[in-house]
């Protein structure tokens, strides 16, 4: 179907029609203006902090979790809103250090890794209990993991377990016998895991929610209802006492938790406030203590930086990039893709347009991974870009067909897309149409490769370059580019078999340099996480994966004497 060329204004207008709710869109347009007025008005108070700074009267920690969790069942969930709740209800073999996110002993007291990196033996602590008094055993992990992999469970995140021997075959129904999967309880307190490949991040995966144990007797008895407050049984620091859908989840300290002495909060309340302006009002008026994960409205961000001590912006292991559909001309031509990449002034987008602490770069793997340095990529060079486009047969953009840039409907994406459109027009003389779609249609368009260029964002699940580089393998389901490169695939396969960590990093760097040369994707920047945290909350630290274990968080009533650093204690 022929689509009418869209200008920025008509994009907005058709977007409004498509949502069939003009009130809604008008609201979305007016709110930022109002909210900004509010922000400016509040700045007049010239406080160092945004809003009230009096701790809550009770020993309770309240945060806005954002969206309502889809699941509380750790084996089924996929979203970080769900993860924040599950991480309080359950604990895996290992748990994340709140500062570094490195795995540290959890239910497993210690572990042994065989020299070939393929066999892990976990020794479980003896005092760990479920909240109903059952002992946490190795069998609970075997049950939970095979349940996630069972095709009948249809868990959307089962693939995170694929490093385990035979996990993929079992999950895809090619192997029927679940005992062939490489996880086995040698006795109640010893768990042996055998891997397919010696992936170095497996220990990190044992902190991950998909690998949490679940209580088989409760799951079998209540089915899909097992996570209701009246049924659920967990082994984490908190237990669920109330769940009002699209409103709040209330947790209280779990007295049966093996490390309960270290848990200093009585209660945690996670609100599900979706509207960012409402959420920030709650923070300002002191009704919530923490606004995690970019719940600060993007038009507030430039005004918060450097002004409020409770605002922070941290680089995140997440990449914002554009996916090019390389299956048809002119984008099947590497020169054209390079020209597009070289014509983008990334610094202008992050430093002038977004101003939210994003790190501009043409690297595909985001900055901030310890021990990994991306090879140089196609940085801004408009002359070279124009030359390449001419070499590809489109001098000054002459004869270049009108292509389309698609993004899901969101103000930030629209502004970025408009900036790209202008840069390409100015530097290359080509005209790119903009096309916005609401989320579900957009995903469908991209997965069906019906796009020319489409917006894409990816957040690492584990701190390793492979979390990104795996995406570009020809067999990867998330590779929406249609790009296939045998050398790249071979390098990725080799990296998986490599046990020498330095050699492995070299292989991954070589693989990334192929991506940055061929450019099936156009990386723009590494994301940053913008958060607000009240100065009286201790124990939440900035982390590159935007994950924050809350077990040891506490409320410091004497913070005015002791300072507002998240380090420190509350006694």
């Amino acid at each position: 179907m022929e689509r009418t060329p869209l200008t920025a204004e008509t994009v907005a207008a058709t977007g409004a029609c498509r949502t069939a709710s003009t009130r809604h869109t008008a609201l979305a347009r007016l709110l930022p203006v109002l909210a900004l007025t509010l922000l400016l008005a509040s700045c007049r108070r010239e406080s160092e902090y945004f809003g009230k700074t009096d701790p809550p009267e009770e020993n309770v920690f309240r945060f806005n979790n954002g969206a309502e969790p889809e699941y509380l069942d750790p084996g089924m969930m996929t979203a970080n809103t769900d993860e924040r709740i599950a991480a309080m209800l359950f604990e895996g073999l290992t748990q994340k250090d709140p500062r570094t996110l490195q795995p540290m002993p959890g239910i497993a007291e210690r572990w042994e890794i065989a020299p070939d990196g393929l066999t892990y033996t976990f020794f479980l602590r003896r005092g760990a209990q479920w909240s109903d008094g059952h002992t946490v055993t190795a069998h609970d992990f075997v049950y939970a993991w095979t349940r996630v992999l069972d095709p009948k469970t249809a868990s959307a995140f089962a693939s995170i377990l694929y490093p385990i021997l035979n996990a993929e075959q079992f999950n895809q129904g090619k192997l029927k016998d679940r005992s062939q999967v490489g996880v086995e309880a040698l006795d109640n307190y010893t768990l042996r895991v055998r891997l397919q490949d010696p992936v170095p991040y497996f220990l990190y995966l044992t902190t991950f929610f998909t690998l949490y144990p679940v209580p088989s007797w409760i799951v079998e008895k209540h089915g899909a209802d097992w996570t209701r407050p009246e049924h659920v049984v967990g082994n984490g620091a908190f237990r669920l006492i109330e769940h009002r859908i699209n409103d709040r989840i209330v947790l209280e300290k779990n007295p049966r938790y093996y490390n309960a002495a270290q848990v200093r909060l009585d209660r945690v309340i996670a609100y599900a406030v979706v509207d960012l302006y409402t959420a920030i009002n709650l923070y300002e008026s002191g009704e919530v203590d923490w606004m995690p994960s970019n719940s600060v409205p993007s038009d507030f961000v430039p005004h918060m930086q450097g002004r409020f001590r409770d605002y922070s912006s941290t680089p995140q292991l997440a990449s914002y990039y554009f996916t090019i559909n390389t299956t048809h001309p002119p984008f099947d031509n590497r020169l054209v893709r390079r020209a597009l990449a070289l014509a983008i002034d990334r610094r202008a987008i992050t430093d002038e347009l977004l101003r939210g602490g994003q790190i501009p770069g043409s690297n595909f793997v985001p900055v901030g991974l310890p021990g990994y340095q991306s090879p140089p990529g196609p940085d801004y060079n408009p002359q070279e870009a124009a030359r390449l486009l001419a070499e590809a047969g489109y001098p000054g953009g002459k004869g270049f067909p009108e292509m389309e840039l698609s993004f899901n409907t969101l103000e930030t994406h629209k502004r970025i897309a408009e900036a790209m459109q202008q840069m390409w027009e100015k530097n290359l003389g080509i005209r790119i149409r903009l096309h916005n779609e609401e989320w579900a249609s957009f995903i469908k368009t991209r997965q069906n490769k019906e796009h020319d260029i489409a917006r894409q964002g990816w957040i690492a699940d584990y701190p390793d370059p492979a979390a990104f580089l795996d995406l570009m393998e020809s067999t990867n389901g998330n590779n929406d580019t249609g790009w296939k490169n045998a050398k790249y695939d071979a390098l990725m396969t080799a990296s998986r078999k490599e046990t020498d960590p330095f050699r492995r990093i070299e292989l991954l760097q070589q693989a990334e340099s192929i991506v940055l040369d061929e450019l099936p994707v156009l990386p723009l920047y590494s994301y940053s996480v913008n958060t607000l945290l009240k100065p009286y909350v201790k124990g939440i630290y900035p982390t590159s994966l935007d994950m924050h274990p809350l077990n040891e968080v506490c409320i410091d009533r004497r913070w005015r004497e002791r300072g507002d650093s998240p380090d420190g204690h509350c006694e």
Partner: protein
Amino acid sequence: MIQFILRRCLISIPVMFLVATTTFFIMRLAPGGPFLSERAIPPEIQANIQAKYGLDQPLLVQYGKYLYNLARFDLGPSYKYPERTVNEIIAEGFPVSLQLGLAALCFALGVGIPTGVLAAVKQGRAVDHLTMGVILFGISVPTFVTGPLLVFVFSLTLYWLPPALWGSWDQMILPAITLGLPYAVYIARLTRSQLIDVLKQDYIRTARAKGVSEFRILWKHARNSTLMPVVSFLGPALADLVTGSIVVEKIFAIPGLGRYFVESAFSRDYTTVLGTVVFYAGLLIAANLVVDVAYKFLDPRIEYS
């Protein structure tokens, strides 16, 4: 009368059927589906998920099953929140929307009627012009402006009232005012014009001539005929308040039913879309029926054929 109610109930069955059918097919025409995610799910798993929810069956079979379940008032599990059923979502969300709607209506009546009376009594004087000016403002300013303004003044500047959330009485005040304001001004106008008319009637002049006090005239003689149109406005107003609170629910983070209207369509949560639409359709039909019956009681001259 009973015959009338029965007939109306019977007529509503094909109406509901049409609503359910149209929604079902329109929803399925939208691209994408409920279990799409940014992270590609292996095709085998995707197939398992589809099978788990019966989405792999032919559309007509799904439609038949849906109608069968609907006839048993079983709206199925939500596709977006699979640990919840749509029945539960409605059971949790609707009382909240209803509370909000009733609170807004109380505000609208409590403010609207006295204002209207005041304006009518002082007709043509400064008080009248002032209240009518405020009313003009109240009608022209939409809720998504009133809401944040109230929050700014009462929550973020004076710190008197919480800016959002739902559960305690103080959290009800701002949303009830925001939602009720347009209705309050409508009621005020209605009361004013009706009372002005009533006060011109001969029997009022007679009462005045007999030296009845002004208050007694209003309370004893003018009250019922003034309130008649207001009462008949209440039925549709309540239905409107309960179903039309989407924006207010969003601004004040109220866990009512309104938001599902919008959000479930975006997330292609088929069951929730169908459930809420059918539920609201039923509610509107019931509300209209109640109003018609009430008219009959209020004004016996009305004939139903």
